[in-house]
């Protein structure tokens, strides 16, 4: 049996070239997820991308590829779509209802009203500063001497209502320093960081009356954000499975659907 014979036929690839990580998802012709992988976007080992692509090429017969994310132009696939369009399509591959999608990413927060077919009805992005995004959490946690992996657990142990006031990462860091001088417990600091993010998100124009689905890399490491958000906002809020792959899944789905048209 030759190499090609072993390949799974009629597959579609989505590549999400995000600011921190690049995600790959392959779906079959019925939309089943057959493969997913994540690598650092700006890895010094540049051949990691190629290695992944080689593996995908070896195992799957890719009909079409769609790239997305800020780096979508750096890969010349069959189509390129923005990460908002793909997030909407990705969540719609899992739930086919009229909904809101909140994607908390490394450098921005996106709110998308998504129709049952996965089309974007309207959207909102914060982009003037990174407050409330993955980059914000990483910087503040570092100042607070909190490991990213332990933040969620610490925060759950606190009932404090204290939160960071400033939108600016630099000022927020100064605030955290003040808390530390005052001896604020680490649990309260962890919760305080989350509360400030949730407060930020809750003030964004989230469409009313729709179920909310959370996706993106941040929610994967900080699921407690969902609980806090649910307390603040009256809507039903769900974290989608594999939240950091949703955008790549959406890209794969869009390439699959474009082939059937």
């Amino acid at each position: 049996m030759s190499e090609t014979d072993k390949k799974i036929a009629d597959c579609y690839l989505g590549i999400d070239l995000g600011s921190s990580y690049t995600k790959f998802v392959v779906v079959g012709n019925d939309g089943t997820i057959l493969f997913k992988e994540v690598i650092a976007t700006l890895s010094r080992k540049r051949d990691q991308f190629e290695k992944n692509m080689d593996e995908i090429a070896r195992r799957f017969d890719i009909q079409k590829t769609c790239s997305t994310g800020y780096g979508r132009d750096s890969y010349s696939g069959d189509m390129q779509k923005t990460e908002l369009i793909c997030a909407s399509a990705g969540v719609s591959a899992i739930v086919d209802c009229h909904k809101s999608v909140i994607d908390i990413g490394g450098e921005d927060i996106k709110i998308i009203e998504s129709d049952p077919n996965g089309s974007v009805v309207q959207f909102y992005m914060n982009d003037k500063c990174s407050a409330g995004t993955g980059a914000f959490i990483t910087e503040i946690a570092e100042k607070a001497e909190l490991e990213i992996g332990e933040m969620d657990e610490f925060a759950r142990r606190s009932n404090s209502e204290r939160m960071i006031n400033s939108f600016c990462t630099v000022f927020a860091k100064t605030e955290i320093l003040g808390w530390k001088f005052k001896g604020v417990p680490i649990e309260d600091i962890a919760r305080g960081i989350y509360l400030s993010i949730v407060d930020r998100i809750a003030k964004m124009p989230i469409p009313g009356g729709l179920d909310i689905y959370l996706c993106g890399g941040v929610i994967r490491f900080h699921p407690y954000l969902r609980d806090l958000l649910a307390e603040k906002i009256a809507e039903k809020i769900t974290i989608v499975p594999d939240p950091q792959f949703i955008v790549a899944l959406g890209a794969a789905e869009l390439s699959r659907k474009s082939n059937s048209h």
Partner: protein
Amino acid sequence: MALKSQVVLKDILKTYFGSLKAPIAWCTSVGPAEILRALGFEVYFPENHGALLGASRLAGKYIPKAHQAGFSGEICSYLTADIGAWIAGETPLTALYGLKSIPHPDLIVFNTNQCREVDEWFSYFGREFDCPVVGVYPPRYLEEIGQHDIDNVVVQFQKVIAVGEKVIGKKLDYERLKEVLRLSRDGSRLWKKVLDTAQKKPSPLTFFDGVILMAPIVILRGTQTCIDFYEEALEELTALVDQKFGAVPDEQVRIYWEGMPIWGRLRSMSELFINNQATIVASTYCNSWIFDDFDPEQPLASMARAYTQIFINRGEETKLAMMRQMLDEFNIDGVIFHDCKTCFNNTNSRFGLPKRIREEVGVDTLSIDGDLNDLRFFSDGQSRTRLETFIEQLKAKKQDAGRKSNV
């Protein structure tokens, strides 16, 4: 495809800048240029210079110089770029038209119908050149314009005339003013016709053509050259309409641009829209130089009305009504609001207008952050993501509507 008119324009601009010899009056872009021309001044427009600094991407070099001289980095970046270039002793007019410096003024006139920033900007140069400065301060943000508002502005125009007469040493010839006003009105009507060719589907011109073609209505308003230019441009565009030529191949969505252009990104933005089959067919900006109400028989009163009733000087209700009409006439699918960091005055997304357009007019909107000249306030990547998503959103809705109407 570059329009033939754009090529002709190059020569016109060369002649214009070459003709800027004393006596020279500086004027704001929607200031009473007709009075100055009728008095016998050559008229120079610092905002045009500001836009040139932006389009040639020199603004980034000069803005910090103005900042060092005490001007905030968050105020009008025409002002900061222009003053910064002056401090540096440089101007793109040297390379383009052989001028040693910006033309020195004998008189400076501004109208705050657009913003108060022009007062500070022009007054700075008044001090630099030790030259008389006259400001017109009309009532601002009006919904209705009453006779008392007109009278108020007429009195202020009379002051411009009095100071102008003193500087130039002769009385204003009112017959000449009427003639200049007639030329201005005819030029402005032709400019409107040029812009209105974009009502056709596909549109033969885009906002990115418009911001180039608009130069004569700004800097040569009230001259025969301006009229001749727009007659030619109109002929060219009408022929393109007849050929069903679309400036954007395969035009799928039609967009209205609200706010200032991003001068340093005209080309890349134009390409982005072309690549996404979207045409910006209308804008508040290009339409700001349509002065239908000029009446040569009542020169001062009609100028007072025309210059006071411009979009930027109106209340939110009137702005909404003006936009509603344009969105309808141009068959607009979506509105892009440019939230321009350093021009609060030309930014209309901050008092709820986008939401009202969506809910009351039923047209989708998008706001993007940027600036007219200071590219530090603009992110190519983030804007592109927003614009492409928005265009896709509009396309999906149109397809959906098309499918439904086929059922």
